[in-house]
């Protein structure tokens, strides 16, 4: 993790929450808020100019839903880390967002301080993966395996990790099971996401998505 100041952008339709987050980010060392928008459309107009490092994207937005917007953001700013913010951890939408390019997700019931910390750690891998989402990812890769593709597949360790996550393990307890550190786990997750993103651009993924994997 770099010690640089993280340039944060927020897409959140609830005004009070949005302004609150912005204030907190600005008040926390290591963060600067480069943009706070109330809808995906608004954000898309401004995001490239703002050039944030991390974008928190509310999953439920008026207009274009966050999961869809994630794809466009990822396309426009491939280097930007997209974190979905969700109240209820809706697995379908989260998974869709992940496939569209999001790095992870955070639940809003996380205390704001932890939220910011998680954002710092985010960079794909920091976010916990709910069992359901882990299971989905696993299934997705399994189905891809059947298709001939040049895209990378999961390593056995990654698959095992996903399996553990699907059973509800946290990164910590999963690390214990795998006898690796939490950092290794996070690296694995990052790698998994990368592969997911790569795949998510391919037609096979689109097809698998459409075929009702989700």
């Amino acid at each position: 993790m770099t010690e640089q100041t993280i340039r944060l952008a927020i897409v959140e339709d609830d005004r009070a929450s949005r302004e609150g987050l912005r204030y907190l980010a600005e008040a926390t060392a290591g963060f600067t808020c480069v943009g706070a928008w109330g809808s995906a459309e608004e954000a898309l107009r401004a995001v490239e100019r703002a050039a944030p490092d991390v974008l928190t994207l509310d999953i439920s937005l008026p207009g274009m839903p966050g999961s869809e917007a994630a794809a466009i953001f990822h396309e426009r700013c491939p280097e930007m880390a997209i974190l979905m913010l969700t109240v209820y951890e809706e697995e379908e939408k989260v998974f869709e967002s992940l496939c569209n390019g999001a790095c992870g997700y955070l639940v809003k019931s996380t205390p704001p301080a932890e939220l910011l910390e998680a954002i710092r750690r985010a960079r794909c891998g920091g976010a916990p993966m709910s069992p359901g989402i882990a299971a989905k990812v696993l299934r997705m890769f399994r189905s891809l395996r059947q298709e001939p593709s040049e895209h990378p597949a999961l390593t056995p360790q990654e698959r095992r990790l996903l399996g553990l996550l699907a059973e509800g393990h946290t990164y910590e307890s999963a690390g214990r099971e795998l006898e690796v550190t939490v950092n290794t786990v996070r690296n694995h997750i990052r790698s998994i996401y990368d592969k997911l993103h790569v795949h998510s651009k391919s037609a096979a993924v689109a097809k698998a998505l459409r075929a009702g994997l989700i």
Partner: protein
Amino acid sequence: MEKELPIARLRSAWAGTRRRRGLGTVAVPALALALTAHAGRLPLQRHTIADGLPSDRVVDVLQGSRGYLWIATSEGLSRFDGYSFLNFGQDEGLPAIGVNDLMETRDGELWVATDEGLCRLAAADPDGARESTRDRAGPAEITRPHDSAFVCFAVGRSPASSSVLVLHQDRAGALWVGTRDGLYRASGPAGAPSFHRVDLGFEAPRPARMELRDIAEGADGTLWAATVEGLARRPPGGRFAEVLFAPSGERSGVNGLLCDSQGRLWIAAHTGVSMWRTACSGRPVTVPAPAGPSSPGHGAETGPVWIDGKGKGPVFGFFEDPKGKVWWATEQGLCVFAGPGLVCFDDPPELARPIHAIAGDDAGDLWLASEGEGLLRLDLNGMVSFGVRDGLLATRVNAIFESRRGDLCVTSRETVSRYVDGRFVSARPRLPDGIGELSWGWNQMIVQGPRGRWWVPTEGGLLRYPTLPAIEDLGRVLPERVFTTDDGLPAHSVFRLFLDSRGDLWIATISPSIGGLARWSSATDTIERIPLPEPYERYAVTALAQDGAGNLWLGFYNGALLRRRARDGTFDVFGPGDQLTAGFVGQLYRDRRNRLWIATASGGVRRVDRPAQPGHPEAVFYTTRQGLASNRVHCIAEDPAGTMYFGTARGIDRLDPQTGAIDHLGTDDGLPNSEVLVAHRDRKGFLWFGTLNGAARLDPRATLRKPAPPVFIQMIGVAGARLRLSPRGERQVSGLRLGHNRSSLLIGFTGISFGRKGSLRYQHRLMGLDERWGPPTRGRTVTYGGLAPGRYTFEVRAVGAAGTVSPVPASVSFVVLPPLWRRWWFLAAVASLLVVGLVGVHRLRASRLVAVERVRTQIATDLHDDLGTALARISILSAVAERQLDGSGLPGTASGTTASVLREIGGTARGLLDANRELVWSLDPGRDDLHSMIARLRRYAGDTLGGVGISWEIMTTVSQEQAQSIHLDPETRRNLYLLLKEAISNIARHSGARSATIRIEAGQELDVLVHDDGTGFDPDGGEDAGDGLRNMRRRARALDARLRIETAPGKGTRIRVTVPRSDRRVRKA
């Protein structure tokens, strides 16, 4: 000289014979030898006005292609089906009162020639509608009333030319119409023909009137036209030209013409009949030079030959029967030209009256249009009957047999007769003094022995005459010997005689006290009495026969049957009371397969297949139940084909032993009387029957077993009203719709059978009610009433002799409509109304429900979203506020009461949010399995316990698949999860433990154990613990689960929850 056959003399000979009739010997002149075998009387039936014929003056007859007989009379057209007449007169649309000629075209159209035009019988559509007789009136059409049965046309311009006398359709299909004023040819469509006059080519002096009388067509299409003025001929494709055919060379009017199958043209001229051998054959015809009348041999090959002379009365027409004989319809009655000469009928008298036309039907009968006797039918294949006029002196026939020489002999009580060339020669046997009468027995009477000697039974003994060639010689010669009781006869009155295979004569006698049996031995010339077992001596023997093994069978008056074994003369006794007999035995007959047939007086006929077999023989029964007309059977005969004939009191029953089919012959078929006493087959194969009133002869080959005729629907009545049907006969009627309460249906049908009506029966069935054919009955109508609504088809077929049935049944299809309130459309309307109503009501309710639900959902969703957002907002804002209090450090680290209050606020909000999330999760039906709950628990444990550094482990013996297949209902899931969550959070908050284990097992019950190695707590003490415990207990109660808490200070805590498995709570998928 005219070449003339001696018809006149023949006639006078016949007349002469009649006049000189009397008792005593009658000799028939030798001239009779020239006769062909049409002596005797063929069955003749007569139909008159009394039977329904419109008039007794019948002008023409024709059998239509469908089988109906069409009759032209002076009072209109009539159709005969064998039972009744359907008449068409002026009321039915006939333009004139009488019909002159009839013709059926090859298409089956019936054309009728009247004095007021040419008419065609209008066809009827299958459902009974009539062809329109109005709209397309062509130039020639006569307008008829709308419901006329005919479409009529005027032919020429003059009224006389519409007086149509003769019709002909040539082989090309053209219609020729002969009228009182010329010959016309029709062209154009059948619906609207036009007529063109055809010149007959008569040279000068042209006759004033061209009245056509007849038209004939030769093998090559040459047309001959007979007119009142003369004869004309038209070669194929050519024009008519007059032909002078009379020997005198003058014109001679012609009444009738016939082209026969040998190519001969018969010309019935006013002056007599000529026969022109080759005129119809297609060979070139040379018209003879008008020379004088030809003598035999002259011009015989090239010109017409006169057959009859003047004064015999005009000949009206000719007819050729299927055998090639040409019949003449003459003013003097019916004649037939066969072979050498002409034979005319004078008996019965109807046949000697003027006959205008002759036609044949497909049964081989001859139909005669008589001028005053109505419609006559002569059954050419019927039985020829013989009576007194044929030389049989007395007509109560008591025996028929053949002499040694092969003469057919017929005897009665007083006379004997011999059949010679169509007549009988009769005599009375000369009896010696002392013998008064011949025997009163019957059937097995006079016998001619092997040496030609005649044995005659009498009341006073047995007479033996010397060798005589013919039976009538018995009238000349006295017997050479008389056998009486002195010679060994058991009694004087000889009842039966039977010559056995050894030439011995068996004699059965009869007297009031005894019967008795004796045998004359040819070796010894003596009579020996044969004793019968008691009590059979007392009964008279009524029938004797020998079976194939030579055993003698005796039938008795009391019905007993005895078999005398040839081997040893012992007797087997059967009955009476035995099944073999019933009533006295009329005859015992051995057929060509050596089966024994027994005719009984009250039990029909029995057949014994193996009479020579020892033991009790088995019999096959033929009674009225099998189809016999009567169970009183007098005699039995067999024809060369093996068909059996039983003479009964009600005619003859004819049995085919192979099929068991029985048909009947009666007086309609030529039997002179219904009581048939004796039967015999002669060596020529003819069957002779003796009745109470004469004898009859049947040629079994002539009576063909024809297939059952087609059946036509004659009449349909619906609730009393008659439907119109086509006069040509309907085979299939459909489309009837009967109302529910007017559904009585009367159907009349008939199969066309003239004559053999006795053997025609019908079977019918009603499809839709019962698929089976009913039993054969004679009835020709059937009524249905009160049928349930539905579709029905009535089918009927004729059952002929030998069980043959009509190939295609006639049918009537109809529908009985249900009452209005049961009609389909009514029901459908009501049903659809109901459905619409119900749907409407349902929709209303559903939409209301949906509306309510939608509102509820809307509320829930809004609440859900708003709550989540709001709580998140509170969480953030409280952190903001806290920050603003203390701007340093990370959020959440400010100090002070306010800060901590704010933190509490945020925490509460987040807690609510979490709880909400849990709620959402717990309600998710996709996550109702145990595996999901374990995963969730693991997550929670990881967050909670891992967050405070307690090492934890969740273990389960349940495999993932198993866990995924165990489903928990929402309440259970929630309660259990929250219970376990409480336990875990207690551990995290209060236990101070280092490690915690959660073990989950799913066997008979769902068992969860939460164990920590912490400090434990006092179950009864402390508020927090109390609250938490209370909650847990509450949840456990809600789960119906057992909750065991083992804890003690310092000892750690074990919490065990056991949830019973039940379908409601925990079920396996």
